[in-house]
């Protein structure tokens, strides 16, 4: 595994006064549907290689239950997190799945990703789009082992040199303080 990069989460924000035009919104929607389909089909390698930017930062912070009056800062990528991955870390996770030695996925489980509430905005940088969406993932395996996860995503998508959109920043906001599952080994 490469040395970790705990780079600050991008300061680039979606410009909510500049929503994407219809065609661009459609392109992004198709990007997310394709991503969901690859995950449903367990094609993690293809997801990584065709939809993820080499400079990706993929982050799922731990969000504590705190009192409203508590004025401590929100978590940053320097804090402990459930996911705090760069491309090499994600690739390492995919490698593990491809060893043929992951007993928990043999027989394979089933997962279905439902992506909705997709909003797309321009940002101050032309090659970056800012998006919001909601996701519901259902996982079933070993007969009756089933879990649901609901979460929001704040992504930055970057257009590469060939014009293809790729996942550049992903912040996952899981709606569970206590993860109601044995693990989150999913590409959320």
């Amino acid at each position, binding site marked *: *595994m490469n*040395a*970790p990069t*705990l780079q600050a989460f991008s300061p680039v924000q979606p410009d909510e006064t500049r929503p994407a035009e219809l065609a661009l919104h459609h392109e992004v929607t198709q990007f997310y549907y394709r991503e969901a389909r690859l995950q449903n089909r367990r094609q993690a390698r293809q997801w990584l290689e065709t939809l993820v930017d080499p400079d990706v930062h993929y982050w*799922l912070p*731990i969000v*504590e*239950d*705190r*009192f409203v009056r*508590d004025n*401590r800062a929100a978590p940053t990528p*320097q804090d*402990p*997190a*459930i*996911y*705090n*991955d760069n491309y090499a*870390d994600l690739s*390492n*996770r995919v*490698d*593990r*799945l491809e*060893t*043929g*030695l*992951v*007993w*928990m996925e043999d027989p394979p489980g089933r997962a279905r990703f439902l992506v909705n509430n997709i909003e797309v905005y321009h940002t101050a940088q032309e090659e970056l789009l800012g998006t919001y969406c909601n996701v519901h993932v259902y996982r079933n395996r070993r007969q009756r*082992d089933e879990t649901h996860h609901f979460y929001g995503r704040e992504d930055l998508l970057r257009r590469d040199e060939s014009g293809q959109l790729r996942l550049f920043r992903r912040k996952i906001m899981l709606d569970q*303080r*206590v*993860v*109601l*599952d*044995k*693990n*989150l*080994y*999913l590409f959320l």
Partner: protein
Amino acid sequence: MVKVNELVDVANGIQSKRVFWDQEVYEQELERVFGRCWLFLTHESQIPDFGDFVTAYMGEDKVIVVRQKDGSIKALLNSCTHRGNQVCHADSGNAKAFTCNYHGWSFGADGALAALPMEQSAYYGQLDRSKVGLREVAKVASYRGFVFGCFDPAAPSLEDYLGDMAWYLDTWMDGTGGAELVGPPMKSILRCNWKVPAENFIGDGYHVGWTHAAAIKILGGPLAGLAGNAEFPLDDAGLQVTTRHGHGFGVILDGVGLIHDDPAYREYAYANVPAVTEKLGEWRAKLYTGHWNAGIFPNCSYLYGTNTFKVWNPRGPNEIEVWTWTLVEKAMSPELKAEVVKQAIHTFGTAGTLESDDGENMETCTWSNRGPQTRKGVMNSQMGQINDGEHPDLPGVIGKNFIGETSYRGFYRFWAELMQAQDWDAVRANDVAWKEPLIGGAVKAAGRAA
């Protein structure tokens, strides 16, 4: 009352499968194990200032762990003394008072009832405030900054409870000037009995090559040879330890940083060896560069060398809430701490590459015993029993290699002792002879088979 002698046969290394399932066993554990033992609460660095608090579990009981004005720490039952409502719903924070959201009774950081609505008009000045403070956990103490609480006033001191394990803990808690935990903890659910991960962490070097075959194969480095148990570096590769109150660990010598195979961390550890040797002697300096899978009885586990630190909070006989912190040494640079945190969560966090392998086994070990016929069976922990004995330089009972079940047997020996004992005095009566059933057990087993 559960017939404990039908559940654990210490001398023969056998446990009934009922220990992973029965409601009756569980209820007795809550009283006799969780009601009596020192339970891990937090690290002092998580609550440095007056009014800083975290909420935690002690068994099934919810507590607030809060720093006092005088710098001491109290643990208070998180339950209003009026109608029992929970008084603090946050994970952590700073509070001068905990106010119940039901009727507004308000308790100070010391647990005393500080204010309540309409005290004069509703109670006519008759409420004796001194009798309705939040219940205080009988004992709270720190060992080198690690804070534990105990409900039983008759329990030994934390230092005596840790006993010989403290001698070993000093290796990493004191060798370089102290360790701390990086939080907040991840929290997740595992549908398993709390003892399954507790026994796994305390002594299971055996599963690593098989359960984690996929994860260690992609790690590369020296551990990769273990994948699929293809290679077994048994000779002099490590040892197992169990101590008086069911604590224990297995150690892979020279294994520090092995799972992460991180040169910076290994360099840091090896550079500390001369200082640790001078402070704690040669044996602990040797253990300092080992990789430990370890348990503080009953439900606190950690991996030193991979630096994950966990508590298995019981939520019924077949569910736990796992809380996970990262263990770092105070003397590490901020960069190295960040690296250690990152590697620990990548492997043993809630989405960890090794954690996810373990979770499957934990759950299945529990739920397979739902069947009453299955539950009539027993489990085997006889591995390495023939080699268990005393060591001239090391306290406790020592197993010859890190792949063995010495620490399992020590864990269940103490579990059975506590489950049978009327009180701590009855436990103390066994202080002299506690090692006996653990040593020479294989000879007894052979005798029975004949």
